[in-house]
């Protein structure tokens, strides 16, 4: 008798458990998706190349600067995409990766995948930026932000080159960069995915 009475309760309990379980998983994946699609702040990129003896522009070609937080995991995808993009530029742009470092050198900031990836891309200059002084002059605040300036020093592109946070793959940014490098009359942008370059 008791056993027979237990069955409906058991079924109801199991049904509730399954529904609760599916809901919990749905919420988890929803949070994951939301985070993946959450772009960083685009900051305020300067419209003209700021004069700086530490980072000189090549007036014969466009200048592409990638602002990187060397410990941001999402930026790995940016550098992998940069490695695919750089050969396609065919020397039409001077490519620089600006590594935002602490003002005072700290262990772990000048090594790792990001440094290795950046140094491994041909014809790319990797330049440390202690304290983010140079970065601040250009205006980006999110790691992975790419600025392309035309031969004339005017901003042609501002944005990211990954489709999502930490995700590799073709993106609107890459296509825009190729267009910005070859055409001087366009100013394009795309969303940036990465860690914040500066403290609040």
């Amino acid at each position, binding site marked *: 008798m008791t056993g027979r009475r237990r069955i409906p309760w058991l079924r109801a309990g199991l049904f509730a458990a399954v529904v609760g379980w599916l809901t*919990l998983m749905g919420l988890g994946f929803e949070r994951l998706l939301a985070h993946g699609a959450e772009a960083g702040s685009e900051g305020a990129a300067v419209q003209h190349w700021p004069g700086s003896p530490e980072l000189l522009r090549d007036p014969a070609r466009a200048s592409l600067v990638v602002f990187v937080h060397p410990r941001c995991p*999402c930026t790995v995808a940016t550098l992998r995409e940069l490695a695919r993009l750089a050969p396609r530029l065919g020397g039409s742009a001077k490519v620089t990766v600006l590594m935002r470092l602490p003002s005072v050198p700290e262990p772990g900031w000048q090594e790792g995948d990001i440094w290795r990836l950046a140094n491994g891309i041909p014809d790319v200059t990797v330049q440390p930026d202690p304290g983010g002084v140079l970065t601040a002059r250009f205006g980006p605040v999110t790691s992975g932000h790419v600025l392309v300036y035309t031969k004339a020093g005017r901003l042609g592109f501002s944005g990211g080159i990954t489709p999502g946070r930490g*995700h590799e793959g073709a993106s609107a940014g890459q296509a825009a960069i190729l267009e910005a490098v070859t055409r001087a009359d366009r100013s394009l942008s795309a969303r940036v995915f990465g860690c914040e370059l500066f403290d*609040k």
Partner: protein
Amino acid sequence: MNSSTSSDIDAGTAMTDATRQRVEVLYAEQYQRVAVHSDRLFAGLLVGQWLFGIVLAVWISPRAWRGIESETHLHVWIAVLLGAAITSLPVLLVWQRPGTVLTRHAVAVAQLAFSALFIHLTGGRIETHFHVFGSLALLAFYRDWRVLVTASTVVVLDHCIRGYLLPESIYGVSAVEPLRWLEHAAWVVFEDVFLISSCIRGQREMRQISERYALAEAQTKLEAAARAANEANRLKGEFLANMSHEIRTPMSAVIGYADLLMDPQLGASDRVNYVQTIRRNGEHLLGIINDILDISRIEAGKMTAEQIVCSPAQLLVDVASLMRVRAVEKQLFFEVKFLTPVPETIQSDPMRVRQTLMNLVGNALKFTTTGGVRILVRTVDPSGERPELQFDVVDTGIGMTDEQLSRVFDPFAQADSSTTRRFGGTGLGLPICARLAGLLGGEVTATSTPERGSVFTLRVPTGALAGVRMLSDLTEATVTEPAPSEETVRLDCRVLLAEDGLDNQLLISTHLRRAGAEVVIAENGRLAVELAQQAARDGNAFDVILMDMQMPELDGYGATTRLRHQGYDTPIVALTAHAMAGDRERCINAGCTDYLAKPVARGLLLQTVAHHVRAHGSAELEQAKVYSEFSDDPDMAPLVEQFVRGLPSRCAAALDAAARRDLIGVRSFAHNLKGAGGGYGFPQITSAAAVLEQATMGEDEGRVQTALDEMVNLCRRARNSIPPQSAILERATYS
């Protein structure tokens, strides 16, 4: 299931419905084992993937940065918490409900949820998609294609939803073709086709294996049943042959010696020898018949055991007194030893305990030619929840091998047939013992060494022993009450023998008369009732009635019931040829005091009658006498005595009236005594008579009977206050 294969098996082996059902059971068991095994595998795998996900997240994206400050990356928390959520329910189900449909479908959902999580954590790497295909392949372990459908549904839903919301997280690119999810789904379906086919084939193979097992089992059972039937036939054949021999041998002796007795030239000495031979063989034959009847009754489940208070010491006295004679005849020693204190009384069935012990001891004596037999008695766990009495019957006989010992409790099987030839017997004694012990809630076990002897142990529950006196330092001598020899039993009593068979009338009455008893014979139950009533009315009541239970007109059960209903309390001993154990209960229920099975041995008959005459007499003597207030008055004494001597006939008349339901007669008796009792110095009689008179005014027959019994008892005690004319006569008058 492949139909051609199934029909082949059916046609080839004529599979029965029972076998088909067995196939289903075996298949279900086999599938359950597979499902449970796969559940456990996946439970481990899920936990492993959870931990792997955490490691993966920590490795790929340990911390999120804000300038030079950092915090744990959200992916790490997601890997910990979402991974735990994914793992929780399936692992819980595997633990609590392994092998169920819900469990494996939950496992399938969880497994593909981990695929989705890993693909996301690795940024949609195409390589991580192999986790999906690996998972589907692993889920095929369940051999349940529905599980693959569930898993594939999760994959398709994941691709559709994420492909719509964040395509780069699953396809690696943000701009995807509208039907890209279909391409991924198609690859999953491509794999599913093969996996589902594999599952169906796996189930079919499992069913074929189950069919083979079921058929093999059926075949084995069939062979075992055939062997058992053959063995049973062989044993029964042997048993019948043995029985035939066992019955014919004493029967031949009885008939042969009876023929010899008819010779008029026979001398007195030979005549006695022949009669003793006939008697011995008759008793042997009776033992065989009793055994057969008992085992058949036990096997039919019609034998029951009582739970009444009885004395274990008295039981041992009974057993020892009978068995010692046999031991002496064979020049064997025989002793009873009490190894621990034993309870004064136990709750059991004394008849069954006695029968079991007699069988065990008789068996021990039968198989012992030198040395002797001991009964060792001990109380086991007297203060525990289930105290027992243990009787070890230890002999120094021929003993048995282990193989022989294993068969001694099987009916119809003695140690071997040569044993039967050498020692005789039916081979039913020990099986009966084992079953009787079972009825008593105990058991019989045995150990034995060939040529050294055997120990048969009977353990009987005693019932609770709290408050029961434990008898210490008992010896055989202290508990043995020498039974009166049948030669020395003298009966000074009147016996009514109700028996319709002329031979038995002659035989039993001769035994009784030779012992000194006065015997009156009634040929049927109706006459017995009339004679008993008449004798009581005449003040010449019987001391004992021997009542045959099968008689014409009114049988012994009816006669006894009628006498008891009339308040007749003289001992009535049932005589019946229904020697089946259990008939005793029927006789006792009818109102009999005791029970004797025909043919009745002379000694047992005389001892039984003597016992009941003594017991009934003692009971009466124990009644307190009631004296008149005028007993010391010389003038009144003669009047009082005359009044008291008239009480028995008045009581008998009242009892007779009560039996006829003549309430007016009973009321008249009460009314008269109510007035007379006080006048003769018996105020108790006046009071009791008033109660009886009052009772007769109502319609409660039980109340009348109780008041009348009280009244008659009081009159008897008053009658005892004056010297009896004849003790026997006085007792009988009030019966």
